């Protein structure tokens, strides 16, 4: 309890409990499987938003290329699933059985070398973490060691997102092109398509999300997190104090990349396909939008941002397809102009003080009655 109350302060603990209650209990009980699967899709973006809180909110590094890492993670997972779905029995009608269908359509007759290791699930899981992590390490080292930052970094990451998309679309035979990798079926023989599998995958994803929240919160509370904030506010002073600013930035960027990649892998599992439309410039900026709307400084805020913006996107584009882009654009301008701290900022300014007052008044009343409740104890 002591560790817990240090790990989360009271309002964070409330945020944690509220999120856990909604994701673990309320949504699974109230939504049908189709809607729950949609929530699972939204939550994959919550991983990216979480990474952006660390890297952008705390570290001050705006990356417009998170789609790249989301895509790399997703494609690693999709390659494994696709290979399993393209077993020799399943692909008998192809001219070369045993390779993914899009390769067969593009007159490729043997599995390319870089596809080979993806027969192994262990390798795939390692690749989901390491490929985006190393890629981020290379970009980060090249950029931050030369003290490139701010807008330049944003533009270059955006260019990387553009490059990767064009590459994936162009190399149709190796990547599935613009259609991406579709028709993913089983994970180690376990069918991922039926309803009960979707529910299990949803819970796996939520557990993973909470694990990532834990890691992010841990980073935030350690000295590392404080240095990140210090760097965002006064980079030069941190450098003159003897810290290697570049290394901390690289770390935050890599961390965000790994979170995004986990989200991407869960996307491939939950949605059942992966395509370049989740990699490029537009999705990358949308991911930043989720974070900004939710609150770039708040771990829980960003997750709510990812869920709510996507929810609004689905429901608005279902009923008023014309209005959706107007709404998203206006929302975004409003958030940037009026509420730079997003929903969590609004919460902290308007809702939290009321709750605090409520608690304070009840506490003073109970103190006066003589049967005080120890602060935080009911959270057990």
């Amino acid at each position, binding site marked *: 309890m002591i560790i817990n109350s240090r790990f989360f302060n009271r309002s964070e603990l409330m945020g944690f409990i509220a999120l856990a209650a909604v994701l673990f209990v309320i949504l699974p009980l109230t939504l049908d499987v189709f809607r729950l699967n949609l929530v699972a899709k939204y939550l994959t973006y919550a991983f990216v938003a979480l990474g952006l809180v660390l890297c952008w909110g705390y570290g001050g590094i*705006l990356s*417009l290329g998170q789609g790249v890492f989301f895509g790399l993670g997703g494609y690693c997972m999709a390659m494994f699933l696709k290979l399993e779905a393209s077993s020799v029995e399943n692909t008998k009608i192809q001219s070369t059985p045993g390779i993914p269908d899009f390769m067969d359509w593009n007159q490729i007759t043997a599995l390319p070398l870089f596809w080979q290791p993806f027969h192994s699930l262990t390798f795939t899981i390692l690749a989901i973490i390491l490929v985006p992590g190393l890629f981020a390490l290379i970009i980060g080292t*090249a*950029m931050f060691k*030369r*003290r*490139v930052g*701010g*807008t*330049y970094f*944003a*533009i*270059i990451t*955006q*260019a*990387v997102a*553009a*490059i990767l998309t*064009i*590459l994936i*679309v*162009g190399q149709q035979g190796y990547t599935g092109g613009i259609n991406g990798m579709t028709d993913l079926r089983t994970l180690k023989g376990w069918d991922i398509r039926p309803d009960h599998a979707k529910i299990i995958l949803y819970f796996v994803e939520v557990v993973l999300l909470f694990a990532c929240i834990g890691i992010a919160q841990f980073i935030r509370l350690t000295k590392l997190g404080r240095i990140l904030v210090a760097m965002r506010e006064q980079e030069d002073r941190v450098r003159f104090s003897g810290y290697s600013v570049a290394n901390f930035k690289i770390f935050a960027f890599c961390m965000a990349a790994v979170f995004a990649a986990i989200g991407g892998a869960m996307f491939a599992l939950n949605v059942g396909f992966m395509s370049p439309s989740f990699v490029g*410039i*537009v999705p990358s*900026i949308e991911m*930043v*939008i989720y974070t*900004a709307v939710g609150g770039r400084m708040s771990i829980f805020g960003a997750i709510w941002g990812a869920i709510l913006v996507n929810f609004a996107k689905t429901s608005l584009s279902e009923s008023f397809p*014309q209005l*959706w*882009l*107007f709404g*998203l*654009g*206006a*929302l*975004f*301008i409003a*958030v*940037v*102009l009026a509420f*730079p701290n997003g929903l969590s900022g609004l919460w902290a300014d308007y809702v939290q003080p009321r709750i605090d007052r409520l608690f304070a008044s009840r506490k003073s009343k109970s103190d006066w009655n003589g049967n005080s409740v120890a602060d935080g104890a009911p959270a057990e």
Partner: protein
Amino acid sequence: MFGDYSLGDLGSIFVMQGFAGLILFSVYVLMALGLAIIFGQMGVINMAHGEFMILGAYVTWMTSNLFQAYLPSLFAGYFFLAMILAFLASGALGMLVEWALIRHLYKRPLDTLLATWGLSLMLQQAYRSVFGAREVGVELPQWMLGSLHVTDSIEVPINGVFVMCLTLLITISVAYVLYMSRWGRQVRAVVQNRIMAGAVGINTEKVDRLTFGLGCGIAGVAGSAFTMIGSTGPTSGQLYIVDTFLVVVFGGAASLLGTIASAFSISQTQSTLEFFMSGSMAKVLTLLAVVGILMLRPQGLFALKVRK
């Protein structure tokens, strides 16, 4: 990859592809000029720049339709009027945006990126609602069609020559305005030190608004030129925005000369490579080279020495 062609063929290929690249170069330069003014001089990342360009393209399209319907006799000259109208429309919208949005964000450059992205989404939807989702093409007047035969194997399209001359003219006038005129001196003063510029009596708000308007107006002219090489749709502008930003960054943000040099090298590399491999790989290689060079030389090709 060069082995299959004779030396003379290669020469012609390079000239033809080089010329095709020059039209791309013109659009890049016009787009990047506006962006270099806005980004390089003001530090604002205008993600809606492509939409300002498309506004110019739509204005050109409407003008051409108007001339076809009401003044068919003057159709040959519609393009000049269309360009001016495109400049005014985009410039006016730019000034409106600066007043409503950008001026609140000068101290938060990264946030301008996010806000103008929101703006670009709204503009795209507005174009879709007003002009429809289908791409529209502009009919060129007779004298712009066809091509000049330089030699047997080399042909040069006339509209390409026209666009290039136009680009040259606009670039020179922008350079003149920025470096020779009184107003250009004020712009540069505001860029270097906003507070001091204000202290010596320059109306910095007015300068900002006009600068932003000028940048957007040039994007509108780029849109006019764009109608000659591509069809105009609500999202066409988005395709160019990353390339243009790379052009500006690659050239060194505050340098007009650098912008031109980088637009030239990027468009020529891409266009020449396109002949030897698929368009997508040419683009990937070009962009990779640019990103690679930027990692080695983050300040761009021509960097001004600035004291930070």
